[in-house]
């Protein structure tokens, strides 16, 4: 009989052998897959900006990452990125919160119509749920809604067809329509729309609310599909650009990421069909001494992304050859695309910094 329950357990369970004595670029056994994701599996991706890296690396390894709203024929990568083709499996832009994911899914299955669907800016009309997919907007609200109808048809297809859903939790902070509770991916007035405190209010989701939204999303898919997909969740290591809580942005960011990490952990513990991939830990753990962050201490370096993805692929594609993930042809549109070639609406908040 053991003297202690810690006696004889694996070396990865101890900080010294599991972390302190490890190469931070290659922490052994940090991730052990719950189930195998194969190249032929139909993989759909969604989430916050960091999720774009996952799709890019999976495609580079020839995984079957779905793309139900492909770019027009002949469009180069840099232009495709401007219009958010191929960023995710559909052109929904970044889905920062679980509530937004649930709302989109309900809308795609005709169970909910969000309020305040069209935002204006400089005489042009934008889809409030994905204001950056058409950077110049449309000429009328009708055009926006027509585009949304076709978009939702593709989202529905994707949700029904996918074998694996990869989702990166990004934020807890969001803005909602007071009367209806409709959630938006960006604050009104940031990219389009106008901020009116009588119409919109700030919301910082709790652990319970975030968990509930994701569980409802899963239940909805279970009802709509013959066979439920498997899920892989991650938490974006990218801190908040700005907070509307009134707290210091570091504290606000820590709250947000802690909630999301807690939700991901609880989902992992309680759902057999859901795996958690610790890209958050790989990037943010203090053993890396911040070296996986850009100079602004926010953006993740390519080395960080590569380290995270190598850890992932070592479990899901151990024999695969590494290739260079496709990047935009040029960086001439970097101002639009953000500092690390991701499409990030949230980064636009920086423009409001004094």
């Amino acid at each position, binding site marked *: 009989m053991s003297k202690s329950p810690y006696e004889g357990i694996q070396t990865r369970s101890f900080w010294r052998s599991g972390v302190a004595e490890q190469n931070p670029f290659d922490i052994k056994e940090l991730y052990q897959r719950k189930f195998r994701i194969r190249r032929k599996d139909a993989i759909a991706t969604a989430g916050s900006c960091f999720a774009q890296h996952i799709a890019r690396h999976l495609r580079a390894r020839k995984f079957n990452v779905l793309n139900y709203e492909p770019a*027009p024929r*002949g469009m180069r990568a840099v232009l495709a990125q401007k219009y958010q083709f191929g960023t995710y499996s559909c052109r929904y832009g970044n889905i920062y919160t679980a509530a937004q994911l649930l709302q989109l899914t309900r809308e795609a299955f005709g169970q909910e119509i969000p309020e305040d669907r069209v935002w204006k800016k400089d005489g042009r009309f934008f889809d409030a749920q994905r204001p950056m997919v058409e950077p110049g907007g449309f000429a009328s609200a009708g055009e926006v809604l027509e585009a949304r109808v076709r*978009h939702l048809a593709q989202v529905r297809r994707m949700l029904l067809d996918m074998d694996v859903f990869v989702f990166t939790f990004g934020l807890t902070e969001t803005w909602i329509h007071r009367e209806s509770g409709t959630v938006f991916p960006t604050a009104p007035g940031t990219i389009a729309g106008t901020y009116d405190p009588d119409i919109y209010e700030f919301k910082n989701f709790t652990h319970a609310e975030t968990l509930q939204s994701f569980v409802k999303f899963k239940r909805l898919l279970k009802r709509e599909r013959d066979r439920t997909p498997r899920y892989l969740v991650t938490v974006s290591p990218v801190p908040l650009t700005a907070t509307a809580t009134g707290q210091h942005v570091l504290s606000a960011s820590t709250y947000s990421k802690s909630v999301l990490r807690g939700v991901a952990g609880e989902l992992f513990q309680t759902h057999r069909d859901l795996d958690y991939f610790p890209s958050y830990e790989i990037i943010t753990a203090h053993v890396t001494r911040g070296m996986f962050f850009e100079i602004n201490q926010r953006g993740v370096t390519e080395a960080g992304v590569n380290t995270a993805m190598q850890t992932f692929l070592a479990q899901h594609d151990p024999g695969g050859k590494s290739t260079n993930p496709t990047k935009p042809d040029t960086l001439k549109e970097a101002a639009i695309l953000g500092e690390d070639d991701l499409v990030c609406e949230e980064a636009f908040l920086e423009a409001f910094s004094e």
Partner: protein
Amino acid sequence: MSRKICVMGNSHIAALKGGWEKGEARTDLLPDFYGALSNGMESLSLIDGKLLPQDVKAAEFYCQISGKETGVVPDHYDAFLLCGMGMFPITAFSNYNSFSTPSTRNTKAPHYVSDACLDDLVWDQIDRSMMMHCARLVRSVTEAPVFLVWQAFWSEALFNIEWRAKQMGPILENRDQNYILERMQYIEMRLEKEGFAFLHQPVETIEQGIMTKAKYSRGSVQLRDRLNQSHHEHDVFHMNSDYGVQCWKAWTI
């Protein structure tokens, strides 16, 4: 006094060369024809004050076809006319069945994007074309007018080719010709700001707004020093000398 015109292009100048030789003589113009096959004009450069492809084979052909022994001296010409070389809104055509826009009536397309998205796409295609490489180089070495000519619309003979018929048919059925023409107008607007002018396809040669009448493509010949070799039977891109005749009749240069 005749204006000396430098006509440059790829295989598409064969129709203009043939048309000039076949048509009624215009005494106001004196054109020289310079060209290289396929992508040869991509290497057009200014070498010792002369416009000449750097690619040796292309340069050889370029001089041979012109009947001159040297490259183009920019100051020798009163105007430049550039044709072909990828100047065609192919991405507007090829994406029509999959992408509708506010300007189109194709409700069957699975995707809906802004017109700006398609404009950006077509612009990017033209902006990177061999035509614009040559046109901007010419623009940089002369103050003479530089006229750009779109490649002729595809011949209506395309309906003999199943996949092309499937591509073109819906545009015509939906009466969406203006969608194509608006994309071209957008390109022209941007290039006019760069100092270029446009010469348009003669109305007489156009069928249903965005195709060329079959009689102007039938028997089109390849660009050779002697224009006596035909393009293959199903070539819908290249026009014949009769097309060139119509162009020289219509254009004010």
